């Protein structure tokens, strides 16, 4: 009588499976990933990345934590404290350096060198992802924050065909829209939105002052005329926004933008993915760089990245290797940016493919030119320029300024004082 025990049965089934691709002696690559991307175009993009990972023979386990980046960090903290960090997690900006001090990360130098990745990534990003001389995180996609989206219908109503190039032109257009009964500036009632319009104003006035004041926290620059001008411009914005907006997200007002009741939106390229999800066509809006007073392209950079946490298990090591390879690849970056509306981190990619929009092509070209002219800066409101403590203290002042009637001079003083308090 033929009787197999469990072990024999397993061996037999393994033997039949062997010729079908499992011929390698090593383990099946596996990664556990946590990120904030759960829904919409972000969720779709990371799901697609997971599919790609699985097609390449890996096992993909994604645990999204919806909300702001800091909400995702709470889960990351809990997992690190319990000794079970994910193989990879989303993390961005200076937090990469800060978090790498509390748990060991994977040194990615060899893989980055082999892929020749460092040469094709903007230098501002290299600094953030190679904080202590070693690559520990890989940027995945980037956005330009200082992007202006104008409603086609609203532009038609006031007879405008081109985006304003300077703040003076912007102000003239907004005044015209207001006279025509259009709400010129779209706004959300949330902190980062309030901070973002201010930083877009400052960058448009002077990227050099932005670098000094926001990235280097230089006191003289913070109290200087450019920062004051940014507060004055923000005060103008607030007069053009819907004062009735409470704690509601900007996306709630997309229908009004489409119908031409709201004129302009200042926000990063992810709007493209959100607009697409809301059913808007490319012909429904005009998009391009936000006003830039010195006429040269400038770029407020916001980039998403994965950091890799050290694990002993061989399947995780193999998985991290595979994931790093994929994240750096043109194929994955094209797919990812195609879904979210971002720009690939690689500067050597051809964006003429139909996957990309004119907005993405223009943004990508602007990045190259801004790198050359030294006008790439890092976003404050999106946690790229400063660690969370400093960002939060500055955003407190900026969101207060947007909602109260403080004169610009007083706002500037409060910002400088808040920075003094956390420096």
């Amino acid at each position: 009588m033929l009787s197999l025990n469990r072990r024999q049965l397993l061996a037999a089934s393994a033997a039949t499976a062997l010729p079908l691709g499992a011929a390698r002696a090593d383990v099946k690559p596996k990664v556990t990933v946590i990120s904030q991307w759960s829904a919409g175009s972000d969720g779709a993009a990371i799901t697609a990345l997971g599919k790609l990972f699985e097609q390449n023979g890996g096992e993909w386990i994604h645990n999204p934590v919806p909300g702001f980046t800091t909400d995702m960090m709470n889960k990351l903290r809990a997992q690190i404290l319990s000794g079970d960090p994910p193989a990879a997690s989303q993390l961005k900006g200076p937090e990469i350096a800060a978090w790498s001090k509390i748990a060991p990360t994977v040194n990615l130098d060899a893989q980055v060198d082999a892929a020749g990745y460092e040469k094709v990534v903007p230098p501002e990003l290299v600094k953030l992802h190679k904080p202590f001389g070693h690559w520990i995180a890989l940027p995945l996609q980037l956005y330009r924050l200082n992007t202006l989206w104008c409603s086609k219908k609203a532009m038609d109503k006031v007879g405008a065909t081109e985006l304003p190039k300077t703040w003076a032109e912007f102000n003239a257009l907004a005044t015209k829209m207001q006279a025509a009964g259009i709400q010129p500036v779209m706004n959300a009632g949330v902190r980062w939105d309030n901070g973002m319009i201010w930083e877009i104003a400052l960058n448009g006035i002077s990227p050099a002052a932005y670098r000094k004041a926001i990235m280097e926290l230089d006191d003289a620059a913070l109290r200087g005329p450019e920062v004051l001008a940014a507060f004055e411009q923000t005060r103008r914005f607030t007069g053009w926004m819907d004062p009735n907006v409470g704690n509601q997200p900007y996306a709630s007002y997309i229908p009004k933008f489409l119908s031409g009741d709201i004129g302009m939106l200042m926000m990063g390229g992810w709007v493209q993915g959100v607009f697409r999800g809301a059913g808007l066509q490319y012909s429904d809006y005009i998009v391009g760089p936000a006003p830039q007073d010195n006429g040269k392209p400038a770029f407020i950079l916001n980039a998403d990245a994965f950091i890799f946490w050290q694990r002993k298990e061989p399947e995780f090591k193999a998985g991290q290797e595979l994931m790093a390879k994929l994240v750096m690849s043109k194929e994955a970056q094209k797919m990812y940016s195609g879904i979210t509306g971002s720009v690939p981190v690689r500067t050597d990619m051809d964006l003429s493919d139909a996957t990309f929009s004119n907005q993405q092509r223009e943004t990508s070209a602007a990045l190259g030119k801004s790198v050359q002219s030294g006008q790439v800066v890092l976003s404050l409101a999106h946690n790229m320029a400063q660690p969370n403590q400093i960002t939060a203290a500055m955003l407190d002042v900026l969101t207060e300024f947007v909602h109260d009637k403080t004169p610009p001079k007083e706002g500037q003083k409060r910002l400088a004082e808040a920075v003094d308090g956390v420096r």
Partner: protein
Amino acid sequence: MRARLAPLLPWLAIWIPLGICIAQVVGFTLYTLWISFTPSTLVPEAGFVGLRNYQLVLATRNWKTAADNLVIYGLCFLAVTTALGLLLAILIDQKLRGENLLRAIFLYPMAVSFVVTGVVWGWLLNPGLGIQRLVNDMGWAGFRFDWLIDRDRAIYTIVIAGAWQASGFAMALFLAGLRSVDSDLMKAAQIDGAGPLRTYRRVILPSIWPIFIAVFVILLQFAIKTFDLAMALTGGGPGIATLLPSIVVYDFMFQRGYLGRGSAAAVMMLLYLLAVLVPYGLFRRWRAAKAASA
């Protein structure tokens, strides 16, 4: 064997869960207390910095705003919710038809999550879309109800939403109290010629005053720990105008990565709670002592 275990079983059933609860509550309270004296930032760290975290938190504008807001919110919420709850209870107590249905309707908000309450009221109170717009469109063009975006009044919108949610609960407690009043007492009052208002004011309400204390204590601890309602309704805004201590704790711990300062803020919240509960405890002891001596 089983016979010998039997008398132990009730003890096991009570003390094991109770022990776990006590270990969790007291244990984590002590842990938070310890963290508040350490220089912890992203993760807990050993070390001792004395009262530095407390000083830093107390010096921020955010905490000052939150502490003021808690007093305003706590008192208003208590007053409005108690008054509404009592009014509803008295009205329902009039032997209405459909009492069960009404009671269920008034209690229903308590079953709704605070986040839902916050989001819904956020839209209702949006002056461009909600109540103000409705009244304006009905013809009263000058009507203003823009508290949600008014920095000085936004805190009262949390009172409104909170009272909407909790007054049904207060009603249930009061109703139970009203039903427990001896009907002979009411009849006696009626025979003496007291009107309904006077009967309530002089006879019934004084006899259910312990219910008031219970409602106050439950509502106050509810007010002190309010978090999700404010987060969903105002997000602490406009600006930082409606921060509450619980939001400051969350903000320090999880948004800014200052575990030490967040813990210090949490301990100060606990002190607020003690400021309510200790007098109540003393009062109960005093009453018990008085009852025993009488």
